[in-house]
C-alpha cells in the first residue's frame, strides 16, 4: 500500500516545497525587534532597518515600538507572559539581574566567539560589563553607555556672580556652591526625580557607601558611607537647595531645568539629548565632584539590545544585533545619541550631536572642552552589584525616598528601615 502511493507522496511533498531545496537560498526570515522609541528616534530606527535589509535581503525586520523607556520592562514581561516574544529586544542594565534570573535573554558569548569579526567586540568595555552577569554571561550588546556628570546654567552663574565649578571640586564644594543660589523660586541643584530613581543609587558611592556588597549577601544602609549619602540628599531638600518634591513630581526635572531656575543638574550623559535640546540659556558641563576617597567615582548604566532565548531565528537575530551594535547600524544610530557602544563610537556620537537632525544643541555650549568632559566622564563609572530581585527592592525603597524628600524623618532613621527592608528582600 505504502509502496504504491509513495511516488505520489514524494511528488506531492516536492511540489509543496517540503523536500525541495530550490527555494532555500531565497527563504525570507522575519525578525521582530521590540524597542521603546520616540517620534524622533523611530525615524532613525527605520533607517537602520532599511540599511540592514539592503545588506541582508533575506532577513526582514519588523519594528515593534513601545512608547516610553521606563515601562518597557513591564511591557516585555507582558509579551513574555502571553507567549508572544520577539526575536531581538531592548535591554537596560538596571533590569539585568531580574531578567537574568529568568533566563529571558541569550548569553551572547558563544555568538561572539563564533563570529569571524570578534575583534570588534570589546569585552572589557563598561557597556559590556554592565550587561554581564556575575557568572560571566553577556545578555545584551550596549548601544548607549552613560555615566553621571554635572550640567550647569552659565547664565545663572553669571547673574548670581558665582564662579564656574572647576574640575577639582569635591562634593562638599558642590554643596557650598549650590547653596549660593538658594532664593525665592531659584535652586542650586537638581539631582534627579522619581522617573530617574535608578540614578540615585550612586548617591552613597562618593561617600564610601554601597547598596549591596560585592557578594550580594549584605545590604549597606547601616554603614556610615550610605548614611552620609542619604544625609547629603536629605540636606539638599531640607535646605531648599533642590526644588521641592511637589515641583519635581508635577513638572518633572526636564521642565524645571529648562525653566532656568536651577543652577546645576546632576544627570547622566545621555540626558544631554533630553535636557539640553532647546534650553533657553547658555549651559556647560563639568565632571562630577571628587569623592571622599579622593577619587572621582560614580556609576554607569547602559541600554542595548539582546536576543530572546525563545527566538526561533537566533542566527539572523545575531546578524541584526551585530549590525545595530557595532556595525553600520550603530553609526546611523549615533545621529540621535545611540550606538555609543564603546569610546570610539561614543566620540563619534559626540561629534555628531550638534549636527543632529532632531536636536538643536547650541554648538557654542558644546565646545571641544565639553566634548572631552563628556567622553572622559565614562572613565569614572563603575558597575554596581545588584541583587536578583533588584526591581522589588527598588520599589520597596520608593516610600523611603519620598520620606527623604518630604523630610518626615531624619536620614539615619530612614537608613535603618531601608536596611531592614533590603535585608528581608535580599534573603528571598
Amino acid at each position, binding site marked *: 500500500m505504502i509502496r504504491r502511493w509513495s511516488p505520489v507522496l514524494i511528488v506531492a511533498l516536492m511540489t509543496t516545497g517540503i523536500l525541495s531545496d530550490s527555494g532555500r537560498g531565497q527563504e525570507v526570515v522575519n525578525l521582530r525587534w521590540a524597542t521603546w522609541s520616540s517620534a524622533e528616534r523611530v525615524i532613525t530606527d527605520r533607517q537602520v532597518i532599511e540599511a540592514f535589509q539592503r545588506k541582508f535581503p533575506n532577513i526582514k525586520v519588523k519594528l515593534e515600538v513601545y512608547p516610553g523607556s521606563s515601562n518597557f520592562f513591564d511591557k516585555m514581561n507582558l509579551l513574555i507572559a502571553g507567549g508572544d516574544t520577539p526575536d531581538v529586544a531592548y535591554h537596560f542594565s538596571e533590569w539585568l539581574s*531580574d531578567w537574568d534570573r*529568568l533566563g529571558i535573554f541569550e548569553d551572547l558569548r558563544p555568538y561572539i566567539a563564533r563570529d569571524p569579526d570578534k575583534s570588534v567586540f570589546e569585552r572589557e568595555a563598561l557597556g559590556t560589563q554592565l550587561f554581564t552577569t556575575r557568572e560571566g554571561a553577556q545578555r545584551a550588546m550596549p548601544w548607549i553607555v552613560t555615566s553621571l556628570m554635572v550640567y550647569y546654567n552659565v547664565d545663572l552663574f553669571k547673574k548670581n556672580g558665582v564662579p564656574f565649578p572647576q574640575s577639582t571640586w569635591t562634593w562638599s564644594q558642590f554643596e557650598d556652591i549650590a547653596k549660593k543660589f538658594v532664593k525665592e523660586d531659584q535652586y542650586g541643584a537638581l539631582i534627579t526625580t522619581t522617573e530617574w530613581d535608578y540614578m540615585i543609587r550612586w548617591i552613597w558611592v562618593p561617600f564610601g557607601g554601597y547598596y549591596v556588597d560585592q557578594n550580594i549577601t549584605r545590604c549597606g544602609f547601616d554603614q556610615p558611607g550610605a548614611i552620609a549619602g542619604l544625609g547629603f540628599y536629605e540636606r539638599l531638600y531640607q535646605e531648599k537647595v533642590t526644588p521641592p*518634591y511637589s515641583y519635581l513630581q*508635577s513638572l518633572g526635572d526636564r521642565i524645571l531645568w529648562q525653566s532656568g531656575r536651577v543652577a546645576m543638574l546632576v544627570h547622566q550623559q545621555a540626558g544631554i539629548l533630553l535636557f539640553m535640546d532647546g534650553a533657553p540659556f547658555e549651559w556647560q558641563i563639568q565632571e562630577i565632584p571628587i569623592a571622599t576617597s579622593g577619587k572621582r567615582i560614580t556609576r554607569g548604566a547602559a541600554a542595548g539590545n539582546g536576543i530572546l532565548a525563545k527566538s526561533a531565528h537566533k542566527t539572523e537575530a545575531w546578524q541584526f544585533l551585530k549590525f545595530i551594535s557595532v556595525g553600520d547600524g550603530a553609526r546611523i544610530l549615533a545621529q540621535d545619541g545611540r550606538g555609543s557602544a564603546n569610546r570610539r563610537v561614543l566620540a563619534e556620537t559626540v561629534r555628531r550631536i550638534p549636527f543632529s537632525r532632531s536636536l538643536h544643541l547650541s554648538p557654542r555650549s558644546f565646545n571641544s572642552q565639553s566634548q572631552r568632559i563628556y567622553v572622559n566622564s565614562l572613565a569614572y563609572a563603575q558597575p554596581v552589584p545588584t541583587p536578583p530581585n533588584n526591581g522589588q527592592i527598588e520599589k520597596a525603597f*520608593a516610600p523611603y525616598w519620598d520620606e527623604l524628600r518630604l523630610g518626615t524623618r531624619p536620614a539615619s532613621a530612614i537608613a535603618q528601615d531601608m536596611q531592614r527592608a533590603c535585608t528581608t528582600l535580599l534573603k528571598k
Partner: protein
Amino acid sequence: MIFISPWLLGFSVFWLWPLGYSLYLSFTDYNLAQAAKFVGVANYAHMFFEDFTFWHSLRVTTVLVGLYVPLSVVGSLLLAVLTNREVRGMRTFRAAYFLPSMIPMVAAVMLWLWIFSPRFGLLNFYLRSLGLPTSEWIASPRTVTLSVIIFLLWLSVGGPRMMIFLAGLKDIPVELYEVARIDGAGPLHQFLKVTLPLLSPVLFLNLVIAIIYTFQVFVVAYSLTQGGPLNMTLYYVLYLYRNAFQFLKIGYASAIAWVLFLVILAITAGQFWLSRRWVHFERE
C-alpha cells in the same frame, strides 16, 4: 443547547479556564520563564502573615472605597435629579456632564497633573486668587487621597452612573408625584418618599458596581501618583500588577487576585443580604 453552545464555549475558553488556571497558579511559584512549582498555601500564608505591604494596599484601597463610593453615588444621583428637569438646553448640560467620562483616563491624568501642580496648577491658581491657602495635592501624603477622589469624581459623577439614575428617574410615573403633591408633600418629601424608594433598585445596582470598580482602581494610581507619596496610593490592583509584571511573581499575584475576588464577593453578598431591607422591587 445548540443555541447556548457558542456562549458556553466563550464562557469556558475566555472565562472559566483562565479563572481556574489563575486559581491553580495561586498555589504555585511561577515567574513566567520557568515551570510553575506547586507551593501549597505558601503564597496565602506569606500574604496574610508576612507581607505588610499587602495589608497596607488593602487598607488604602478600602479607605478610598469608603470615601469615594458614597460621594460618587450620591453625586451622580443628585446630578441626575437636577438634569431630570425639562428645561431649555438640558440636553447640552447632560452632555457637558457626561463629557469627562468619555475622555480616556490616561489623557485625563495628563490634564490633572497640570491642574494639581502646586506651583503652576489651575486649582492652586484659583485658591490663590480667592486668597485661600493652597495645597500640595498629589505631592503630599496628607492630600493625595483627597486629590485622587476629586479626580475620580470629576471623571465619573456625570458619567454612565448618572445616566443609569436618569433612566431610573424617567421610569417613575409622574402620577405618583401628583398624588404626593395633592397630599401636601414638598420637594424634599417627594424625593425621600417617592423618588428614593422607587429608585432603590437602580441605586443598589450603582452601589454594587461602584464598589466593585473602586476596589479594582488602577490607572489613576499607575499614571497619576505611581503609588506614592509614601505608598499612600499603592492601591490593591497596582500592588497586584507590580508583583505580577515588575517582580515577576505571577503565582503570588494570582493569590492576591483571588483574595480580592473573595473580598469583593463577600462585600457584594453582604450588599445583597442588606438590600432586602431597603431595596423595593416592583414585583415584590
